[in-house]
Each structure stands twice: as C-alpha cells, then as structure tokens.
C-alpha cells in the first residue's frame, strides 16, 4: 500500500488479492470499483498468500496489500486475560480485519501473524449470525476493534456502516470500538447508540511520535474524541499501553493534565489503564524482526507467560498516575487489569 493515494486522502493498495469465493460479496465489488487501478490477483484461499513462509513483516508493512476473504467459523472469540473486560464476565472479541494500517512499535500483531498484509473479511452476515447466536443468551461485551482500527479503516471499508443497524437493534450486546484514528466521519454521519462505546487510545504526544508510526497526533485524536462526544457518543479513554523508563516516564503527568484541560472528565464514560505487556512468544518473534527497537531490547519480568514491568514498579507508577488522574475522574471509573 502506498500510504496515500496521490493527492487525495484515500489509501491505495498496489495489489489486492481476492479469494475466488469472495468475488460476489458487496464489499469486494465496492473495493474493486474504488481501487480500479490496483492489480487484482485472484487466489484460492487467503492463507495461500497470508501464511507464506519467509515473509518480512517490516517490508510488507511499508507496502501493505489488501486481501479480501471469506471467513469461516469461529467468528467471535472469548476475550483473553491480557485484555480489559470492564467488569463483564461475558467478554468476546471479533476481528473483521487481520492487521492494521497503523504501525505501532509495540503492537503484538507483529508477533502473531506471519504477514503484515491486511485481510478484510467480506461475509459480514455470517459474523452477525454467530454474534447473535452466542451472545443472545446473556448481556455480553464485544470488543470489535481490539486488534485493528476499524475507524481508521472506515474510508477503505466502512465496517461500522455495515454493522450499525445490527448493533443498534441488538441491545443485549455492548460493543466497544477502539481507535487511535482522527477520522470523525462515522460520528458525524450516524446517531449515537446506547450500546456502543468509542474507546480512544491516547498517549503523550512524544510517546505517539516514538512508538505509534502513522497514527494521528494527540491533538488530532482529541479533536475526533470531542466530535464523538458532541454528537452524543459514549466515549471511553484508554491509557494503554503505559510505558515506564527514564526516557518516557516524565511525559505522563503533563499529558494527564493537558488531557483533562481539553476534555471535561464528566463527559467520559470511564478510563482503561494498562501497562505495556506481551506474551513471551510474540515478544521473542518481534525481537528478531525489529532488531533496532529499544523497547524489545529491555528486560521485563515474566509472569504467567506474559512479559511486562515488575509488579512493584507497576504498583508504584500506577499509584503515582492515579493520584493525578483521580483529581479529574472518580477512582471507580478507572479500570485496570
């Protein structure tokens, strides 16, 4: 993918792979029309391209291709322990997309997938029926954009449009859409709904510059957040991942103060808080593909297969951060792992 299409703000994919079985879906037809100068390559199964051996994540990230595919079961998964469930025991996540247009240095997807090309699933009706099936029994929490950014992808495939009516009618389901995007089209063109939370991941601007390549600045994200709020959407702030280190720790206090000088804390639904953490296996893989990353050179402590900062250090930093945050927001509105 060339990051931007000529002078417009449209993303461009040099190569678009299309599964034979995906050809007749609406999303595929729309993409073929929209990107009619891309090279379309017909494939049998997305894994024939996505799972090839010896792919290089870094090179592909700079030249991302799009793969349109039909997903087979399962369509939703039980939420893992490393994710926040915000108090819901029926916590699920789903992935309409594999991979993301952003390139955060700390992103665990680099260790999870063999490729950084983007797979977009086109059979949205199948997702809907399984979501309905599994979650109809009791109230559930569904993270719909946990390991990608649906709002950032909205101008390529507007998944939020396709799912809007479904989510709206299905009140048993509380949906969280996590984003770092400054794209505010969705908030401007749709009415808010009670069971949809837009969760903005925010970090100090220097942390964004250091670790979150291709993502919008803090101010651009705050602007989008304000639009979402002014349109009546429920907004969550995710302060996750938090980094500890002599080169970053001092950014947080001014960041929290700035954030709540811009946003009225009363308007915020709640805050998610979490430290940088990653499964040991993913970490080992990324360490190899990103030899120039200081983040993956540091030593962390290992607990239950997850690498992160030592418990006592986390506790100390968290206490310090919460002291600042609770000046603005009630303690029981802050969720941490």
């Amino acid at each position, binding site marked *: 993918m060339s990051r931007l299409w000529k002078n417009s703000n449209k993303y461009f994919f*040099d*190569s678009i792979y299309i599964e034979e079985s995906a050809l007749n879906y609406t999303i595929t037809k729309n993409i073929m029309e929209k990107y009619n100068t891309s*090279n379309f*390559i017909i494939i*049998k199964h997305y894994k024939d391209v996505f799972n*090839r051996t010896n792919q290089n994540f*870094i*090179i592909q990230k700079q*030249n991302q291709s799009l793969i349109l595919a039909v997903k087979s079961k399962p369509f939703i998964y039980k939420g893992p322990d490393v994710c926040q469930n915000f108090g819901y025991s029926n916590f699920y996540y789903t992935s309409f997309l594999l991979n993301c247009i952003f390139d955060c240095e700390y992103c665990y997807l680099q260790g999870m997938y063999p490729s950084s090309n983007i797979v977009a699933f086109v059979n949205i009706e199948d997702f809907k029926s399984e979501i309905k099936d599994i979650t109809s029994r009791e109230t559930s929490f569904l993270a719909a954009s946990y390991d990608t950014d649906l709002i950032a992808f909205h101008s390529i495939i507007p998944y939020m449009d396709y799912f809007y009516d479904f989510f709206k009618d299905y009140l048993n389901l509380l949906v969280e859409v996590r984003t770092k995007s400054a794209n505010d089209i969705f908030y401007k063109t749709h009415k808010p709904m009670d069971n949809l939370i837009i969760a903005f991941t925010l970090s100090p601007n220097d942390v964004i510059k250091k670790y979150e390549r291709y993502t919008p600045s803090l101010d651009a994200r705050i602007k989008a957040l304000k639009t979402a709020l002014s349109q009546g959407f429920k907004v969550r702030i995710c302060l996750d991942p938090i980094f500890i280190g002599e080169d970053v720790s001092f950014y947080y206090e001014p960041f929290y103060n700035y954030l709540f000088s811009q946003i009225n804390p009363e308007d915020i639904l709640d805050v998610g808080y979490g430290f940088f953490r990653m499964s040991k296996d993913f970490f080992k893989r990324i360490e190899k593909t990103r030899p120039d990353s*200081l983040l993956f050179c540091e030593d962390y402590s290992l607990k239950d297969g997850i690498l992160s900062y030592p418990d006592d250090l986390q506790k100390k930093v968290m206490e310090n951060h919460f002291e600042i945050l609770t000046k603005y927001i009630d303690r029981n509105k802050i969720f941490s792992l």
Partner: protein
Amino acid sequence: MVFIVTALMLEASPLIEYYNLKKDMNINNYQVYKNEDITLIISGVGKIKAAMAAVYILSNFKCKKEDILVNIGFCGANSLKYNLGELIIINKIKDIDSGKDYYPDVYFGKNIKKETLCCSSKPIFKGDYIDDNNILIDMESAGIMEAGQKFLYVHNTVILKIISDFLNPKNLDKEILKGYIKNNISLIDEIIYELKSLNDLLKNPFDKEEKIVNILCENLNFTEAMKKMLFKEVKKAKLKGLQPVNILNEFCNMEVKIKKEGKRVFEQIMEKLK
C-alpha cells in the same frame, strides 16, 4: 547479492554484456557469470532445471534471506493485447502440471504491467490452450518460486518475462530476441535497483558492533552466555545514542589468563555500557 537465472544463453548474453559479468571458471556443472554483486546462471529449459540451477547458486554462494533471485526470460502470449518484446512483471504463477499457485510480492516497477503467468513443463502452442483468453506461458517460473521460497524472503524472488511470441515459438530470430532483452535492460536495471533499496531496510544495524563483540569475546575467553549478554547491552547502548564501539575498543587488545580475570573485565565493560 543479486542472483539471476535465465534458461538460455540467448537471454543471458545481453545481461552479461551490460553488467560486465565474467565467467566463473571454477564451476563446471553450469555456466555461471558474475561481478561483485550479480551472479548469473544459465539453467537450461524447464522448471526442474530452473529450480536445480537456482538452488545450486543460492547454496553455492551462501545466500542470505536479503539476497535477490530474479528469473529473466521469454514467455509466450495468446493475446494480441501484449506487444512483442514487452516486459511484464509476474504477480501470480499457476503451475499447469501441479495446479499449485505461487504469489511473488511485487513492490517495484510502478508503471510496468503486472500479470499472471502459467508455467508448463512442455511447450504450449496456439490452439493447445483454450481455457483463458489472456494468458502468458513460460516453462521455468514455478521452479524458480519453489527454490526462492526456501532460501529468501518472499519479496526477493522475482519473475520478469518478456513476450517473445504468440504461442508460435518456432523459427524465432535470435537477434530479434536478443534485441528484446537489450531494449528492456534499463527497466530490468531499475527493478534490481529498487529491490536492492528495499532490502537496505533490512541491513543489520549492529554489523560493526557484532564484529567487535566477537573479537572481544574471543580474546577475553567469554562464554556464549556472556557474549549474548554483552551484545544485548551493546545494542541497548547504541539505541540510546551512545557509542559502544569506542567503549569496546578500549578492551580489544586486552588478554586474560584466568577465568576470574575475564569475569572482572566483563563486569567492567557491562558497567561502562550502562
């Protein structure tokens, strides 16, 4: 290193001339020509021969994953939509015999046509192939893909084809064919340049440091575990903007006689790097 495989001398000779490649007289099994950063091998016709030749040079010249394997050769077309002598970049290969598909990544040649290629183990003539109206056919690409994917990053196996005929490959004029390669040589050169630049991103940023750490560990009898710890600290120091090479150089001429002394020096270096 850029490894080029062509089936025929006819396809190779304009490249040998352009890159000023010299015959490697130490190799008898194949005709291999090379300069400092290009090695060319003539495989003979067919995908098995192509795979064998590719594996031969990739392993004989101890390739790294960042090296590049390019197959340059002719293909036939059954559609007049293509021009004779036109260069095409291949983004999908269908092996007609096995039914297997291959997908070379294409991150170069912005304005050059990209197409699917069918690879057959025997020559295909007009009329033999009635399945699809726009089709390109060669006899080597699937073999090159099989070989490349074992040794290199996927984006480094590249298939470039030049249209030689409309599936009527008899009595082709050799000089005209050579001309087709010659006419495309600047495009081929640009593609090779783009591929090399792409792989620059993958250069080991700690090459210099790694070499000094190796020398130091040898001189000071450090264990493998110590070497690993030292290299990690050196990397960290460099990423923090320090000059670990200068620190390591201070210790390079030092020699230790007993293990205990080595340990003491090791701690000293580690301390200095922090």
